[in-house]
């Protein structure tokens, strides 16, 4: 009986460490057997390009969820920041300035959400739902429902450019993952994000700047959404006010599948990276297999539910 208890424990540890990785490999294997297009370089690059947009958003989302919050506004923030910046660049603003403007807009919208959460004690779900509606509405009225199109090449470079034959977005997302990892694991601020999420009251009593911590994660989430938007808009050469609808869903899915807990304070960047890849491959696979789009949401919903059950069982 003693040995049984030991094996049970190490099974859990193994599952916790490698369960996600193995599921990811299994999914890839399945898809490469089911369709011969999956393993083509062209397709794999496409998966990575898709993953890069969701990956950048997911890093911000992860930090928000680590503080027991959620950010539903990422898609709408992306759209509003991009239509304004896109319009600016079309009216002759230098691309670099427009890019900075875009990131600043995203960050400011995050600042508003964060302020609602920290100062007015509005639950994150409601605060960011409000921000989502407002940003989407502003984007629609700013453009009068028309997409903004036709950007100079340097503005599009982030999304459409290549470096050494590899799409620029892949470099960007790798950089963001790396910075996210360093931030979370190696800086005081990152450790305080974990501490706050683990026990907000103890964080307050320990004299951590709890408000700044929470504000920071929402600002970061907004700015990263805008950055993801620059990639999306660059690739499409168009910024529609309705763009990125539902992106919050994929980002939350990736973070949750990656093992970050809604109870706050628990999660790893490595898990989020795998979660992003898994969701990207899942999306891609369902497209390759011609799964109808309504049904794709059902599958993703089921995957999230399964992941939550899985983590509940092994924690």
């Amino acid at each position, binding site marked *: *009986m*003693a040995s049984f*208890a*030991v094996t049970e*424990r190490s099974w859990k540890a193994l599952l916790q460490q490698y369960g996600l990785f193995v599921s990811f490999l299994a999914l890839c294997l399945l898809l490469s057997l089911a369709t011969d297009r999956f393993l083509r370089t062209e397709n794999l690059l496409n998966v990575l390009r898709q993953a890069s947009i969701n990956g950048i958003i997911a890093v911000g989302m992860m930090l928000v969820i680590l503080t027991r919050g959620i950010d539903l506004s990422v898609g709408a923030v992306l759209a509003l920041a991009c239509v304004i910046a896109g319009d600016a660049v079309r009216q002759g603003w230098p691309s670099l300035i427009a890019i900075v403007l875009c990131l600043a807009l995203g960050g400011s919208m995050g600042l508003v959400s964060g302020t609602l959460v920290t100062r007015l004690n509005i639950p994150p779900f409601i605060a960011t739902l409000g921000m989502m509606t407002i940003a989407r509405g502003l984007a629609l009225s700013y453009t009068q429902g028309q997409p903004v199109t036709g950007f100079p090449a340097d503005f599009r470079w982030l999304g459409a450019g290549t470096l050494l034959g590899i799409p620029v977005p892949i470099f960007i997302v790798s950089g963001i993952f790396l910075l996210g990892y*360093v931030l979370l694991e*190696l*800086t*005081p601020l990152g*450790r*305080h994000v*974990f*501490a706050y999420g*683990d*026990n907000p*009251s*103890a*964080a*307050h*009593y*320990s*004299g*951590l*700047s709890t408000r700044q911590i929470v504000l920071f994660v929402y600002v970061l989430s907004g700015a990263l959404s805008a950055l993801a938007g620059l990639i999306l808009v660059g690739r499409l050469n168009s910024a529609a006010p309705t763009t990125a609808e539902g992106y919050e869903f994929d980002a939350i899915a990736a973070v949750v599948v990656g093992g970050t807990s809604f109870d706050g*304070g*628990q999660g790893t960047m490595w898990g989020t990276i795998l979660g992003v890849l898994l969701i990207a491959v899942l999306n891609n696979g369902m497209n390759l297999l011609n799964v109808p789009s309504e049904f794709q949401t059902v599958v993703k919903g089921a995957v999230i539910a399964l992941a939550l059950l899985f983590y509940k069982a092994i924690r």
Partner: protein
Amino acid sequence: MNTTPLLHMSAISKSFPGVKALDRVDFTVQPGEIMALLGENGAGKSTLMRILDGVFTPDSGQIFWRGQPVQIRSPQDAKNLGISMIHQELALVPYLDVAKNIYLGREPAGLLPGTIDWTTLYEQAHQQLARLDLDVDPRTPVRDLPLAQQQMVEVAKALSLSAQLIVMDEPTSSLSNAEVAVLFRTMRALKEQGVSIVFISHRLNEIFAIADRVTVLRDGSLVGSEPLQGMTADALIRMMVGRELGETNQRPAGEDVQSQRQPILEVRNLSRAGILHDINFTLYEGEILGVAGLVGAGRTELAETIFSVHPPTQGDILLRGQKLRLRRPADAIRAGIALVTEDRKGQGLFLRMEVGANISVRILHQLARFGLIRWRDSQHLAQEYVDKLGVRTPSVRQKVRNLSGGNQQKVVIAKWLTLKPQVLILDEPTRGIDVGAKGEIHRLMRELASQGVGILMISSELPEVLGVSDRVLVMRGGRVVAEMNPRLATQDDIMRAATGAKTS
């Protein structure tokens, strides 16, 4: 005695990664008996009781209930047998009110199926509270109660189960004498009715006062079970730690500390509406100032006001003669004030984080170079404090929630010591800490004081207040009602001041 024991746990073993928590432990409780369970922090007391409650499954061993072998797989199984448990770390739902907590999952049924008879619920809750002399509105959310009252609500909950065996894991660690007296009265009444009780406490005087027999654990092994009749405290300690303990009185022989030293913290006319009234005192450099009083006397509130968790409505706090303007704990910490809170689970610890991360969380900035934390240094620092305070853990990478209660308390203290504060406020610093480690912590306090730190120590344990402090304040009803010299005062003097009884 020839009766079948109510409970017999036989050769129970349990291991966690890196820890052998229990090694073939036998434990027996007779009907109508109060059995004390004693041992150092991490000896395995709570683990043994959690096995009895079905929270943990033992690696090996057998449990007999009234002579019959039983399998206890969940707390529900334990409840069905007639076992009721008061856990060391309170397990109340903070947002629910007192009555709902007491009857959680056992709400009296209403007229329609699936409904709850709220009137009966609140009436019964009221009766349970009255039985414990607890002056609390059953509609108060539990999180609004001070820790001691939450503890009493746990007791009420356990009593309401009409169990055959009640396990109390350190129910008195946050109670003062008055509440302990009420609890003991209740325990004796239960014993009269034939109920058995397992009582865990690190306060030996309590064990002598209430228990019939004692079972001692050391490092996960059974040392022995003995009747308390004729047993001495020294003999108990020897069983517990396997050696004699040195002198525990830590006060230096010197005379009045105040006369020679500088004031470090001055509190002037401090009030908080309805809670604190016109509080005045001075804490001197190198002084340990004890604060005694009953639960609800405003001691924790005083500490939290100085630490600026709550703003005072009136009055000033001066640090080395400078008026402080503080708005939140972060400001107080910057000024050099630290507060070891009473409620370690709620306000002290990051339970799911590692021991090392908990200890170093306050000073990560000092451990960083170019903005990046030097992990090696932070682990070394944590290890240093783990050694200094004798935290029992397989490594600094262990999650804090896997430590025993007393060892968690040491982690909280360590976190605050890393800050090297000028004023250290300790609210029940040795809550749940074993006799030996308590002496260590007192020695540490004395050492800090000798380096000039001013220490304000709130404690419900009168021997601790009298044994460690240079001077004692007694609070009652949000006021400081007396100041005493612990060399001359007795426990009775303090109790009289704390309760407001006329001096005889």
